[in-house]
């Protein structure tokens, strides 16, 4: 019961934050709302007993990505403090599409008999994640490292003075 209430509270706050990201007219405010949304998702992970994911969410998304976004906005002065609407003349099409998709998906998800895993979370869950990285998922893990190298090369190339 307490878990349910906590979940609804957290999910509600996360949704409000996410709406703020989309609707805020000031880019800097949108970035701050994004931090809130990331934090809400981290809390959701912790409520689901996925502490590792919760911690990773905070370290990576709030610690690295959101900070970087804020830096990027502050460094590009002509964006800082400017108001920019998130609307264009197609917004009602987008709204209709989103509402339709939400209703469809919500209906299907409620109808669907998911095979829920009811077993306890194993005590060594983090160790198992680590073993997954060097076991079943070693190729994706290694490919991701080459991907990061390529992204690094690209970032340096794009950011260097001509």
């Amino acid at each position: 019961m307490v878990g349910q209430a906590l979940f609804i509270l957290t999910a509600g706050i996360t949704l409000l934050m996410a709406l703020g990201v989309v609707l805020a007219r000031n880019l800097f405010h949108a970035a701050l709302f994004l931090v809130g949304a990331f934090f809400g998702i981290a809390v959701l992970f912790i409520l689901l007993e996925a502490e590792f994911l919760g911690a990773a969410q905070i370290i990576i998304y709030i610690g690295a990505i959101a900070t970087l976004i804020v830096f990027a906005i502050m460094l590009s002065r002509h964006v800082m403090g400017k108001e920019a609407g998130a609307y264009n003349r197609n917004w009602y099409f987008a709204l209709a599409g989103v509402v339709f998709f939400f209703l469809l998906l919500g209906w299907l998800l409620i109808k669907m008999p998911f095979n829920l895993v009811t077993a306890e979370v194993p005590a060594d869950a983090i160790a198992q994640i680590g073993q997954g990285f060097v076991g079943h998922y070693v190729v994706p893990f290694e490919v991701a490292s080459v991907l990061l190298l390529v992204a690094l090369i690209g970032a340096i190339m794009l950011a260097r003075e001509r």
Partner: protein
Amino acid sequence: MNVSDIIRLLSPELILLITGFVVIGVDLARRREDEGRTAAAVAVVGLILAALAAIFLYFSSPNQIVFYTMAIDLYGLFFKVAAFIGVALVIIASVNYMAGRSKFLGEFYALLVFAALAISVLVSATNLILIYIGIEFLSITSYILTGFLRGNERSEEAAIKYFLYGASAGAILLFGMSLLFGLTGTTDLAAVGKALEAGGDMHWLGLVALVLVLAGLGYKASLVPFHQWAPDTYDGAPTPISAFLSTASKAAGFAIVGRVFLVAFSDFHPEWTQVLAAIAVLTMFLGNLTALKQKSVKRMLAYSSIGQAGYILLGLVAVSNDPTFGGVNGLMIYLFGYIFTNVGAFLLLLPIEKKSGGSTDMEQFDGLATRAPGLALLMSLFLISLAGIPPTAGFIGKFYVFASVINQRMIVLGALAAVNTVIAAFYYLNVIRHMYFAESAVEGGVTVGRGLMTVLAINAIMVLAIGIFAQFFMTWVNSSLALVTASGF
């Protein structure tokens, strides 16, 4: 499986990985002297070695999974060989074009090698996680290559559009994958397929997941309505990169759509046939009708390449067990021929752009037959192949794809495809008309470098060879249909 087996089965990927690093190193040492020529040479040698390794593997007929997530099968190896050849041709043709346009030539060739590595991983992936990482790897490499001409507004615009669209498509793909994982409790394609077959109640949600995954993967193959990035990106990117994006990268998109649908969604075959048929019709009509109106040949080729994606998709719509017209073999021979045809057509724009200072408008082609008869002849060959007229590769591809469609009794679909061929022939032949019958507004011949000439010659020979010795190539394609359908875990 011992270490030597693993090294043997992953040899194409390992060779490319090492090549990528060596190219960067070589470039550091020789950057000033030769404008990236050594780096390009190393990259091409690496790609040829990787292609040879893949062919060598092909003859040992492997049909197994390495490290739980990569299927080394004939289907994947076919696409690897085709993509490596395509990337190597693009690199050779880039040498003169890129020299002087960018300071980061070594990185350019290294990124192309890494793009080949991404394709190589992607076409073998049998796990949703590896598919996602492979798609992102290929996409991020492509964004950088598209925006490589710093200071060129159109190149930068092309990269930004591609990036924004690709990032959204990636999110949609992940959403679809998360639904699949929720439904089946696994990320392995074969296991997903089994679970979807077993559970009756998951049908509708499975269908939503299918559409979302198709949207995420279909954008790589520039299928309508996930194509919006394609015209501006093909048009604005450095021309060799347009050639790469519209061929090797697109082939990888089709390869992984094919693998996911044939292995994971095999139970949904009746549904996806209809979804894909609708998408194929939209793609053909939108691509071809818009191409009709274009004034620039590069932009026309960009839209034509969307239209071509529609024909190629027909192969997957008409998939069956028929040994001659099975659909998938049509898709594969079409893509194989299309790589040579479209790389040739895009690269032929290089000397025209050089002469005109960037423009590829129809007027630049006026009277090309008298100014540069060889180039005009080659361009005609590539355009005839794109239009699907014998004796070219394009004809063989269209023949097998359309025959599969008719063989499946999809008469309306076949008729719509035929209508599109006629529309397309109009704008392809219009360029030939400009080259042979229009008065030239531009004076003087067109010069072509030795590297580019070699590439164009190889493309032309392959386009004709596939058209004339179709039987030989079809035997190869027909023996390459083996897909791993076992679970990796």
